[in-house]
């Protein structure tokens, strides 16, 4: 009911002003002196729906004005980038396993990260195996690589590569082994004996038919595992179970909520890199564009710009809210 009260007060003031504008103007200097305090007190009791409206405006206006700023560089994302770049020189195990363990509810943050990592692997000709432990992500394991292939092939064409080097070939450069049921058991199965855990790709073709999977027996044959998840416990599960004899390098792309707890694993060296929510993915995209010439995903850059405006609003509201709280308490004490 605060909105009605505020609108009512505004209507009252307007009717007073219309009746006797001079009297209202005489009151103006005093009103202006009291204004900051009154404004803060008003803000203290601001209806939450106005805050929702302001947030919506802060997010819609940059989109409708087509504003787009380059995201900041992210050090942890660049670590993962450098790791993938150095894979071929460092080790004969250059296969990357990307587990797309997220659903529609975290799509906004994790789709850009998935797209960026797959794009990078495909462009750098590091073979990539895509899978998921979440049934809701099955569609994404098909859609996102398709989008990545388009971007990579376009980048290669723009770089002037001959047509036979442009194509990303299924079964040689990448493969989708689809949804694996059983979470921990699936991870343990893939780590210890992949052919018995996964016999076919997502289309039902035997894995032995694909050159990319011909010599892959267990976790030891993977040079890197990238876990992309918004679920609690999934990253820990891969950390705990995805190993055979040799240590497997694991990297994480997570939602912003999980970032603070993920730093601990980064510090201890258990993760080789970290994509911190949408900013991490956008930073990775920027690195891809600057270093390899792969065009950035416009959607991600726009989202980052919108987020910047949204966060600025949140900061302003937090500061004003705290000031309003202090002023309100003083007024109460004085009364």
């Amino acid at each position, binding site marked *: 009911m605060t909105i009605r009260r505020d609108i009512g007060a505004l209507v009252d003031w307007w009717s007073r002003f219309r009746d006797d504008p001079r009297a209202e103007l005489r009151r103006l200097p005093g009103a202006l002196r009291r204004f900051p305090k009154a404004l803060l007190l008003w803000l203290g009791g601001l209806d939450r729906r106005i805050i929702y409206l302001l947030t*919506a405006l802060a997010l*819609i206006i940059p989109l409708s004005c087509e504003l787009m700023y380059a995201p900041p560089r992210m050090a942890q994302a660049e670590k993962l980038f450098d790791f993938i770049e150095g894979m071929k020189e460092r080790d004969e195990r250059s296969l990357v396993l990307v587990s797309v363990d997220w659903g529609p509810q975290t799509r906004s943050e994790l789709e850009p990260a998935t797209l960026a990592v797959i794009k990078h692997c495909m462009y750098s000709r590091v073979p990539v195996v895509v899978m998921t432990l979440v049934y809701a992500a099955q569609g994404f394991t098909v859609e996102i690589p398709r989008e990545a292939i388009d971007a990579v092939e376009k980048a290669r064409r723009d770089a002037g590569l001959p047509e036979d080097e442009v194509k990303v070939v299924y079964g040689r450069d990448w493969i989708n082994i689809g949804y694996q049921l059983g979470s921990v058991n699936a991870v343990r199965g893939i780590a210890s004996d992949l052919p018995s855990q996964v016999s076919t790709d997502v289309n039902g073709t035997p894995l032995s038919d694909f050159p990319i999977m011909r010599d892959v027996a267990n976790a030891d044959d993977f040079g890197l595992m990238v876990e992309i998840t918004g679920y609690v416990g999934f990253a820990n599960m891969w950390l705990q179970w995805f190993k055979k004899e040799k240590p497997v390098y694991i990297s994480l792309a997570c939602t912003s909520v999980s970032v603070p707890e993920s730093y601990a694993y980064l510090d201890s060296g258990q993760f080789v890199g970290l994509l911190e929510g949408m900013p991490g993915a956008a930073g990775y995209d920027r690195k891809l564009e600057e270093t390899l010439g792969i065009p950035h995903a416009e959607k991600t850059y*726009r989202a980052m710009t919108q987020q910047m405006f949204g966060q600025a609003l949140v900061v302003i509201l937090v500061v004003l809210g705290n000031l309003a709280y202090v002023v309100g308490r003083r007024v109460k004490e004085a009364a």
Partner: protein
Amino acid sequence: MPAIKLVGILLAGIGTLAIYSFLYRENKFYRLFEHVFIGVGVGIGVIETTRRFLIPELLQPLYVKGLAGLAVSRVVPGMVSPFGVSGAFVSRIAQDAWQPAEFLWLVPAVIGSLYYTIYSRRYNWLARLVIGLGIGAAGGAAFEGIFTEMLPQIYSAFRPIVVFEMKTGGIDWGMSLINVIMTVSMICTMLYFIFTIDRKKIYLERAASTGRLLMMISFGAIFGATVTARMALVIERIQYLTGDWAQAVFYSFYQVFGW
């Protein structure tokens, strides 16, 4: 645009608006889509579990390699013999099909089904057996896995207070400061959770209070990250509503009204 895709996009947009209508106030439109959302989620879960697990992992082995194989070998014994009426080919199919070990799948199936006894007052104790079995197995696995996960964390918690630079041999002040802050934070936070010692001594109390303060700072960071994550969700929805959905709405209007 295919009609089914168009309907999907339109419904997704309407659903989004319905859920966001709760921000204004509780309403029937929101309630309807809340129930639809939960129903669809449960429905997909049931279908996926049946399609991906129950049929290929339990019913198929039991039926094809168990029951059907048994039927073939018992009802038409002549077919099983390589010298029988149908010859070696049919015999081989029947023998391959008949794998008695597949019946062992019945054991976990029966044990798992005991979960449903939770609805019976008389037999609900059987459900507790299954729950206990599950918790025991999960606990055992977690105990095994936790060492892989936690030991590197414990190692990395022991850090040098003074860090020397590799190239020059001088003190790396920045890294040293970080390590000092990290060590102090860890000790203070742990002290806050130790309740078995008397904290009458002022320095212990102060350290525990510092630990609490440091935790509050960390919770603040987590809360900030949560706000960012939630905002990302809204951004994705706004992009969807102003992009795909708006296009679909205009397209539908054009198709229906011709404008």
